[in-house]
């Protein structure tokens, strides 16, 4: 045994952690964009915001864009939307696609966005927020701050921020983007690439991850990024953790397999959950 268990007496007096549920239902295909909810539904309804960073769009970008009520491009992410959306919707007229897939805001220091792209979106009403580069916050950090200050719904409680282009590319950017998950641990932020989805499982909660098998899995992992975990416990995986310790230099849970429709995770440390996305997603 790698860790000592909490004594039964102590366990009985510790309050259980609140549960946080997670679902990738936003990746499910739909034939038309969902109508915004009204009345009582509106208060509990989930709302999505999309942030596009400066990497090639994943194949499901148009689907997430139409799901979202707020779309922000970080600097060169605007080039990616301008060039990439028509490519992902080849049957449609590029100019019509560009008008339909217009960001609400472009934020950053504007050193990557092409001048003609900036002009084009500006003329369509996109808000241009020119921020000088700053050592302490990355482009993604600034976009998340913008969204939390201007939530698309009544508040941030059911807001999910979907980020495209945060993984791959320059490694320091990727690390900075993962650090944003830790810095905004009270905000639901999901980083998505063609291959994977990742989000933070804060140690303050016990987690229930609902698996959408048609679009994600089976490969998954749990990574203690930034600090070791002396005790993590899971259910629903092929190789479950049972009060197991994980750290860089030792064991990480990678190349694991989801076996149940609900995976549960509890840990003494913040963990990054990752799951593979199916090729036809």
């Amino acid at each position, binding site marked *: 045994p790698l860790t000592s268990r909490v004594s039964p007496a102590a366990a009985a007096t510790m309050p259980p952690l609140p549960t946080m549920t997670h679902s990738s239902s936003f990746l499910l295909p739909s034939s038309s964009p969902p109508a915004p909810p009204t009345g009582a539904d509106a208060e509990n309804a989930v709302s999505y915001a999309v942030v596009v960073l400066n990497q090639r769009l994943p194949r499901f970008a148009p689907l997430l864009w139409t799901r979202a009520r707020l779309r922000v491009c970080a600097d060169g992410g605007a080039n990616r939307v301008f060039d990439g959306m028509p490519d992902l919707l080849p049957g449609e007229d590029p100019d019509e696609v560009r008008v339909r897939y217009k960001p609400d805001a472009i934020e950053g220091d504007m050193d990557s966005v092409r001048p003609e792209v900036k002009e084009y979106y500006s003329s369509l009403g996109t808000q241009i927020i020119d921020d000088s580069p700053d050592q302490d916050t990355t482009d993604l950090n600034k976009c998340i701050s913008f969204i939390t200050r201007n939530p698309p719904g009544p508040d941030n409680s059911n807001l999910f921020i979907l980020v495209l282009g945060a993984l791959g590319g*320059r*490694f320091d950017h990727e690390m900075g983007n993962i650090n944003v998950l830790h810095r905004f641990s009270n905000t639901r932020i999901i980083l998505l690439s063609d291959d*994977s989805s990742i989000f933070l499982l804060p140690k303050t909660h016990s987690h229930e991850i609902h698996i959408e098998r048609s679009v994600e899995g089976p490969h998954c992992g749990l990574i203690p990024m930034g600090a070791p975990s002396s005790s993590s416990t899971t259910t629903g995986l092929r190789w479950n953790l049972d009060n197991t310790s994980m750290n860089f*230099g030792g064991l990480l849970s990678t190349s694991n397999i989801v076996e149940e429709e609900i995976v549960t995770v509890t840990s003494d440390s913040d963990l990054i959950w990752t799951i593979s996305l199916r090729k036809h997603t």
Partner: protein
Amino acid sequence: DYLQEDKMLWRTIRSMEVMAHSSSFLLPKLHQPAKTPANNYTLVVLNQQLPRFMPRLWAQAKMRICADGGANRIFDEMSQMTNDLDRNRYIPEIVEGDMDSIRPEVKRFYSSQGSKISDKSHNQETTDLHKCISSIRHRTPDHEKANLCVLVTGALGGRFDHEAANINVLYVFSDMRIVLLSDDCLIQLLPKTHHHEIYIESSVEGPHCGIFPIGAPSTSTTTTGLKWNLSDAEMRFGSMISTSNIVDSDKVTVQSDADLLWTISLRNLT
């Protein structure tokens, strides 16, 4: 007694050993400096699209190992990069791994050309990269270990859990020099046991760089040679880590109480 006191003093004033790093392996062969920190290169090719500068790495390496599907990548992509249709010029010495990705015809070709096929399919506990590094270490005599540097392509990008497992290999084998390379950047471990001197080859790398405490937080890290140096600074995920930094000198130094990952952007490498 005075003898004990002397011994203790000696332990505290002895400075940390310096570990020097250089990316001279990225330079064309003709521009190799006479002396480099470690110049016995082994190349490990994982199963992702080859970086643009693969021919340069291939030429530098004394030993080339394809990890499973990495052999497909050499077979398919190398000739396009070099405009050289002769596959016989790019034969890895070893093809190693669990063999679930390598195409049968690719395996047959390399086997017929003399590559050693090392089938590790019985071991499902570790990744292909882990297996390769483990064999390299096993095969390298002790007196040659200090001079060995393992260059790895295809470890970054792709599935995130694979990337994390590959980065973990740097931590598990922290006494070896291992460099993970992509088209955009390189990453390597700076163990806390050493004071690091990183010589910057500005014709092929930089200026963007970063330093990350991925395994555990650092309570004290000090650097020189960066635009935003750290001075006895704390670094932690959830708080400050050094991203989008800029190299400001041809030598960067790093000393820390935690193992750190160093990354620098690559350029001009077509």
